[in-house]
């Protein structure tokens, strides 16, 4: 049967068909749907782990135990999981193990644009890279076979365009595999120096074998065009852009295996043409490899640069000098940045923080939008968990001057991911810091995934729920309180009190995400235009449902969920 499938959905289908049994992941755009989709197959055990490191260790444990296993994450998640990755490269596997890492060229939803191929090279773990949904499924299945044949975990590198584009996939049946035997093998799985030294020798030999495989694998293919004036070496999503932009004007070497890279295959291809272009998104890894193996008739980064995606228009313009005609209006078109939703519980909290002029150490999630106008309430956003540890460092640097006017904000899921350890540091190292956990009972930004605080697991079944209050107390924080961000006065008072205190404190700002299906909303509010004086106090909240028409506030009834914070904000009682 043929079906239109997202790259991520096809990836999940590949896991299913390959007989994968254990899946553990942490959500992250654009990788999330792989795990959500594979969880729909009853034959596969699938879970959300608290973070990527835990997920990868879980998958490795399952592989050692004899089950084909998988873990998925976004590019920055692989940084978190780098520790197990680099040693899993040494241990290798028992049953096959596949890791998905989804890069975000163009930074559609990320804090940086790193190229995950560097991790594959540095950890000496092989990496494949599909360029459409059909390849996602095929590459995953092959990756499991190769993982078992070469005794290595295999990384499959995705990108936003491959992960979030649908193309046609032919479905096949699942290959149900028995558990492999588990035998205690310390020389392979106990990585202390005496054994690890032996495994390093194995890793180097394995890389040699994989490099030979790269010369002949169907993953790497040459597409010769009789009309070609030059050659192109490319990979991943860029392959599709190359074909669209250049058609038969170029012969193409498409590399589906991006670590290790072939040598002779590239040398032979490049020898056919006077000029070869390497078209790869982000870093110049293939291009540098070409130069290392004496292929010098290549150009790449000097033309295409290191930033963002390389869609067909860029390739057509740079290589063919072609540009498409288009028209645009003379009017300035205002930008439409993402915003916190109407009724978002984060809004009330950020409004209070802004009003108090507090310095805010931010984190990764929907609440990062608190940095946008008109709230402009966040000072820093670095990586998962950095709000809390960053705040601690900030306060240790500036002392009492900042302790009473600086807070960290972090979501429930991010706190579970890597915020807890920062809070331990605050308690342990006697830091007078104020941490606000924005508990909206879900992992919001990636599209509503369950997490260890929500009381449900990935499959939606009841699960143990972490009690945040008790956890913070157990860590050693004495001042722990819960507030409702829909109540502005209460929230403001709580922030003031905790900032004034001379010890560490945690405020749990608790209210479920307004988009959760079980959340019951009030009817939309209405502006009484007779009472409205046009003072724009309500506009300071940055609610997308409120705008000004003819100097009076107007509430969009299709967006408003009746959260009521604008009513509390209105000094003349005009919002009913």
């Amino acid at each position, binding site marked *: 049967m043929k079906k239109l499938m997202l790259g991520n959905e096809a990836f999940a289908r590949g896991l299913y068909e390959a007989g994968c049994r254990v899946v553990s992941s942490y959500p992250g755009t654009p990788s999330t749907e792989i795990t959500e989709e594979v969880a729909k197959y009853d034959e596969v055990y699938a879970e959300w782990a608290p973070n990527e490191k835990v997920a990868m260790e879980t998958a490795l444990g399952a592989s050692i135990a004899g089950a084909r296993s998988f873990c998925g994450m976004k590019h920055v998640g692989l940084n978190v999981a780098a520790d197990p990755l680099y040693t899993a490269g040494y241990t290798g596997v028992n049953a096959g193990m596949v890791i998905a890492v989804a890069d975000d060229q163009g930074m559609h939803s990320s804090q940086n644009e790193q190229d995950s191929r560097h991790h594959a090279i540095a950890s000496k773990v092989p990496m494949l890279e599909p360029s459409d949904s059909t390849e996602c499924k095929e590459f995953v299945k092959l990756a499991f076979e190769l993982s078992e044949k070469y005794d290595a975990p295999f990384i499959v590198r995705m990108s936003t365009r491959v992960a*979030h584009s649908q193309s046609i996939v032919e479905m096949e049946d699942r290959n149900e595999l028995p558990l492999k035997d588990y035998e205690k093998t310390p020389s392979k799985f106990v990585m202390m120096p005496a054994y690890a030294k032996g495994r390093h020798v194995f890793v180097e030999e394995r890389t040699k074998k994989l490099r030979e495989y790269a010369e002949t694998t169907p993953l790497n293919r040459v597409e010769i065009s009789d009309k070609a004036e030059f050659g192109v070496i490319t990979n991943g999503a860029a392959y*599709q852009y190359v074909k669209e932009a250049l058609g038969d004007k170029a012969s193409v070497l498409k590399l589906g295996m991006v670590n290790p890279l072939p040598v002779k295959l590239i040398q032979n291809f490049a020898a056919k043409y006077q000029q070869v272009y390497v078209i790869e998104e982000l870093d110049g890894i293939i291009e540098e490899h070409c130069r290392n193996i004496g292929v010098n008739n290549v150009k790449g980064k000097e033309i295409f640069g290191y930033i963002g995606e390389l869609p*067909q228009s860029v390739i057509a313009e740079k290589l063919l000098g072609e540009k498409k005609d288009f028209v645009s209006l003379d009017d300035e078109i205002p930008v439409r940045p993402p915003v916190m939703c109407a009724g978002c519980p984060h809004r009330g909290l950020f409004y209070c923080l802004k009003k108090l002029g507090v310095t805010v150490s931010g984190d990764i999630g929907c609440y990062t939008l608190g940095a946008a106008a008109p709230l402009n309430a966040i000072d820093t956003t670095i990586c998962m968990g950095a709000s809390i540890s960053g705040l601690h460092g900030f306060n240790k640097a500036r002392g009492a001057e900042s302790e009473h006017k600086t807070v960290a904000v972090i979501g429930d899921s991010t706190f579970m991911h890597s915020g807890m350890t920062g809070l331990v540091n605050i308690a342990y190292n006697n830091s007078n810091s104020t941490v606000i956990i924005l508990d909206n009972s879900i992992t919001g930004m990636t599209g509503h995934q369950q997490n260890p605080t929500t009381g449900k697991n990935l499959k939606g079944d009841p699960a143990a729920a972490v009690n945040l209050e008790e956890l913070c107390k157990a860590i050693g924080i004495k001042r722990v309180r819960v507030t409702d961000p829909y109540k502005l006065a209460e929230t403001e008072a709580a922030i003031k009190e905790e900032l004034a205190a001379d010890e560490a404190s945690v405020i749990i700002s608790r209210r479920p995400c307004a988009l959760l299906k079980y959340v019951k909303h009030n009817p939309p509010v209405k502006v009484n235009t007779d009472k409205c004086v046009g003072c724009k106090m309500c506009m300071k909240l940055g609610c997308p449902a409120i705008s000004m028409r003819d100097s009076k506030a107007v509430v969009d009834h*299709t967006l408003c969920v009746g959260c009521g914070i604008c009513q509390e904000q209105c000094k003349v009682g005009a919002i009913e």
Partner: protein
Amino acid sequence: METKSIMIVGVGGQGSLLASRLLGNVLLAQGYDVKVSEVHGMSQRGGSVVTYVKYGDKVYSPVIEKGEADAVISFELLEAARCLPYLKKGGKLITSTQQIDPMPVITGAAKYPEDLVEKLRAAGAEIVAVDALALAEQAGTAKASNVVLMGVLASRMDYPDELWQKALEQCVPPKFLDLNRKAFELGKNAK
């Protein structure tokens, strides 16, 4: 057949994903190679949302760039104006007349341009402007304006109605199917 490109644009939360999947399924059933490209994550949350639908004998790039779209379907007027440059010469622009203020307009940092339908027409776009929100509310919910606009598109594409009906069944939860069929019909018959 040469590859055709249709862009579906709107504001996060307006249901452009459903619309693109609906169209994708119709084109798949028609026997084309199809690619549908979506954007998830940060660009939802009330921001501009763009999806690309491409079909033909063989589709490579899933992305549509400036000057490449045979049609742009917009759920919101400002987004239609924003995406005008993507339309190729002679391309069709189907837009809802609904207006949603973006945050810079709400905060007073920018103005929502006036008379956009006329300006788009003057710029040479072959434009079909429909009050999709009113038709959706007539069908039963403001949320169905995406399917109303797919109805408008269907009336300008030459595919059998049963393909669209089947795609609706594939893409819409059963309890909302009747409502969406009604919205689709209202769009098809919209002037």
